[in-house]
């Protein structure tokens, strides 16, 4: 191509590769959840990366909500309250999946590219 030097060609190739990969991430079928966000009444939201398996406890008004984190997903293992709403939500693995503990005033939501739900009805 007249006027195009080898450095220009490398730059174009790099730019095309970069944009292709970005579109791959953003517009192709979405990946899994990458982060658990715990929103508790009266507290700043807490963020937990969904990378390493571990169990955490969140103190609340009615006791401790125990949360199991595994790579790409999280679930409410045990939480105060007879209705078992929090545990009943099961594994949260798609971005936007949510569990709620009414007695402990907690919302657990996993996030990642392209959340599925804006709110949870129950």
């Amino acid at each position: 191509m007249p006027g195009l030097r080898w450095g220009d060609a490398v730059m174009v190739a790099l730019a095309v590769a970069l944009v292709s990969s970005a579109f791959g991430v953003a517009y192709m079928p979405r990946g899994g959840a990458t982060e658990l966000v715990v929103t508790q009444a009266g507290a700043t939201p807490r963020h937990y990366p969904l990378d390493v398996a571990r169990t955490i406890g969140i103190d609340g008004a009615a006791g401790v909500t125990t949360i199991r984190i595994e790579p790409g997903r999280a679930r409410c293992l045990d939480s105060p309250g007879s209705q078992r709403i929090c545990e009943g939500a099961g594994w949260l693995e798609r971005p936007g999946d949510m569990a709620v503990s009414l007695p402990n005033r907690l919302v657990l939501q996993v996030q990642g590219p392209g959340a599925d739900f804006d709110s949870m009805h129950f």
Partner: protein
Amino acid sequence: MNPRRPSSGPPAVLRLALVLLLLFLNACGREGPDTDRLAFQAFGTLVDVTLHPAGAHDLQQVESALREDLEAMHASWHAWEPGPLTDTNRLLARGTGFDAPASVLPLIEHARELEQRTDGLFNPALGRLIAAWGFHQDEPAGPPPSAATLTALLADPPRIADIDYDGERLRGTHPALQLDFGGLAKGLAVARSLELLAELGVEHAIVNAGGDLMTLGQPAGRPWRIGVRDPQGAGVLAAIALGADEALFSSGDYERGYEWDGKRIHHVIDPRTGKPSEGIASATVLHADPALADAAATTLMIAGPEEWPAYAHRLGVDHALLVLADGSVELTPAMENRVDFRRDLEYRLREPGPDTDREPR
């Protein structure tokens, strides 16, 4: 030597790279939610607020205003903690006229209309019956009422129509009348919260009070996406797309309740039998009026598997989804258009109105 064209701006390659960079940044901008969320305790439950777009609102101001307003309504409308509603009940039982309290009057007016439209199946005047089942306390508990107690309570049950109202003063004409707006108050509270958000300049939001919710506006280019919890198992039963200013309310046997003699005693009491309703595990109603959606969910659950379409018709409900006690699912055709089930299931379509059965899908 190759001839080169003179150029006053950056080389074409650089411009191309810039365009690609902008596209890249745009693509990266799609990461993460486009909403902010708040969660706080008010109205006796967890209130979860979703605001769109992210980063556009004073979250502290929104939370503070909503919490204060919801707590005021909760105190005014509480069925057993001392306040305007318990005062009203005391004066109604006395049978003499008194000035209608401004905070309680909207509930009475809504209830009067709903009781008429459901021919008494929705009856918030049965507070004594609800209390007899152990639901007038923060943690519901037995024992359930005896057969003799139920017979006495149902011999001449009070109705909202037993309240005389001349536009200024109220007077009770039934000594057993006791108001309990558990099937209506949250709908009015959510409606008021959305009005408050609009006054604060919020244009796109969801207010979710203990699982029942309503939208304010909607994000540009997409509907609100709501997950519906499976009442009989783990996870999500369905996703429902909501537009602007739509309410989604449910009644379910998994809500307030207790175990007694190995049986689940739930809080939705059928005025015809005086006992917890049977046959429907949960009723979900989508409607533009949150108070009606709230009351209709309770009414359809009480109506039972045979009669719920007739009561949906009476209340002007086009969008309803019912999970029956055996786990089967029934819904209206209008609701079918809104629902995306997240697990394989057979469901039955039923049009609001009497005698409208269709084949399973």
